[in-house]
């Protein structure tokens, strides 16, 4: 199976999957937190938070990538601090690709989870509280299981978006083969060189296959979870 993809192509596919998985896993807890705050919270600056979360959806990806470079670059405010205290460098590394993908996918994830939380009847959470359950327990035993289908949808959407992220990634971490060259960057690169169409087409086929597989898997998982939630 490894034969029909060249080493550079394989690298790009593997890196993209790694980056997208990390981006999804790391942003999931934050996604749930923000979605919960937006769905149920009543606080000052809620609209500001909402706007901030959705910003990457509206801004040109290149702009997002450049802003990431400014803040998380080695000379950026946060980037410099991260390197000094944790020794973590993001710019031009695969870790930066994770951050870029996570930020670009975040609005989609939050949206899906938020819709799921809004669909949970707060009266059920209230009933749990009257039975003596503290807030975090209510969340863990009532809210979380009930939003599981939405959670899965949000995670898969985010994964798919991360797999396809190009603009912000190439701006923030560039296009270094084996280090930051993700699947879309690789396709772009192959299209720039003469005779690269065949490689590009193979990668396109891989993208389509991964996207379809993710979609089917999420559909299956969400349906199973929905059935459990409905008490089947």
């Amino acid at each position, binding site marked *: 199976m490894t034969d029909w993809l060249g080493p550079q192509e394989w690298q790009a596919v593997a890196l993209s999957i790694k980056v997208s998985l990390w981006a999804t896993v790391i942003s999931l807890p934050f996604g749930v937190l923000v979605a919960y705050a937006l769905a149920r919270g009543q606080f000052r600056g809620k609209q500001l938070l909402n706007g901030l979360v959705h910003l990457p959806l509206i801004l040109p990806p290149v702009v997002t990538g450049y802003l990431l470079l400014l803040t998380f670059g080695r000379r950026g405010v946060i980037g410099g601090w991260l390197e000094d205290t944790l020794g973590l460098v993001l710019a031009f590394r695969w870790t930066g690709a994770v951050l870029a993908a996570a930020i670009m996918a975040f609005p989609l994830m939050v949206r899906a989870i938020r819709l799921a939380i809004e669909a949970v009847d707060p009266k059920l959470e209230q009933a749990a509280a*009257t039975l003596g*359950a503290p807030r975090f327990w209510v969340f863990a*035993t*009532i809210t979380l299981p009930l939003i599981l289908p939405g959670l899965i949808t949000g995670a898969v959407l985010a994964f798919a978006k991360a797999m396809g992220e190009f603009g912000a990634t190439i701006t923030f971490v560039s296009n270094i083969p084996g280090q930051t060259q993700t699947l879309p960057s690789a396709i772009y690169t192959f299209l720039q060189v003469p005779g690269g169409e065949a490689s590009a087409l193979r990668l396109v086929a891989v993208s389509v296959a991964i996207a379809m597989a993710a979609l089917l898997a999420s559909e299956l998982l969400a349906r199973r979870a929905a059935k459990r939630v409905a008490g089947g």
Partner: protein
Amino acid sequence: MSLVVDITHPFGAFTLNVAFEAPGGITALFGRSGTGKTTVINAVAGVLRPAQGRITLSGEVLFDASQGVALPLHKRRLGYVFQDGRLFPHMTVRRNLMYGARFAPVDATGPGLDDVCDLLGIGGMLARYPGTLSGGEKQRVAIGRALLSHPRMLLMDEPLAALDSARKDEILPYLERLRDHTDMPILYVSHSVSEVARLATSVVVLEDGQVARSGSAEQVLSDPDMVRQIGLREAGAIVPAALIKHHDDGLSELSISGGQLLLPRVQLEPGAVTRVRILAKDVMIALARPRDVSALNILPCEILTLRGGDGPGMIVQMACGSDRLLARITRRSADALALAPGVNVHAVIKSVSIARADVGHL
């Protein structure tokens, strides 16, 4: 144990201003829709924070606006049974029932799973999910779930309102058992007179956000002034009764303080104590003891008060032994018989007019 409520809260067009005390037994918060019943029970539960006032349970402050105390929902330990059940759809009946058990303090006493299953007849559905239960079954599980959290009192917000009359009859006996076998106070919101008559030990009547009347169920329901709130058709007194024996012709004989009652067969053992609701519209008044009449129940009474309304009818309150009875007659009849307070009369009640649902089961 007793609950003391004294709260003020803006409520639609008027201000809710309610003060009452709920001792052990079932205290019914009774009134039409939109009189503030649910607001009061939500304030007690902690779902709603009243603007002013104080709520205490056995001396412990649950809420005090002036001291800024408001115990959070999950720390009040009040079992709340909602009108719509609110079972957790993703958990089996067993997990629903046991949900609150882990939060009950170690020293809290109360029934165990087996006791609750026996009391409510839900032992056979433990492995099922709420989605597969009927409305009546769901509500019984909801009551069981509240009981198993070992609450200090129960709050019930129209727990039977969403059910048809067959399902109601299925649950009423369980609620009666609950009332008679635990000493925990139960606050019961209802707009149904028949439920209140069957279940309540004391009644708080709400009207436009104010307490119009409160007292024991016997007192409030036999008060002619309450007829307007209760409605003419539903007005009637409740009297405690003890079963003497069953007759071979299908009738049951019960003793009340003012004499005997013959009713269609009652599902009770001889010696059992219950209560009978006698609707005002089913009671006739005769000056002399009637003879050659088909009605089987003729009780000597003394007239206490007569209340006329706008229409042609009157409500007559009578003392029958130590109980009160209400009769609804026309003003014309009252004039013809020269009825007045102090006059000795006979109340005539047809046996078949007392429906099975008007007699409690224990």
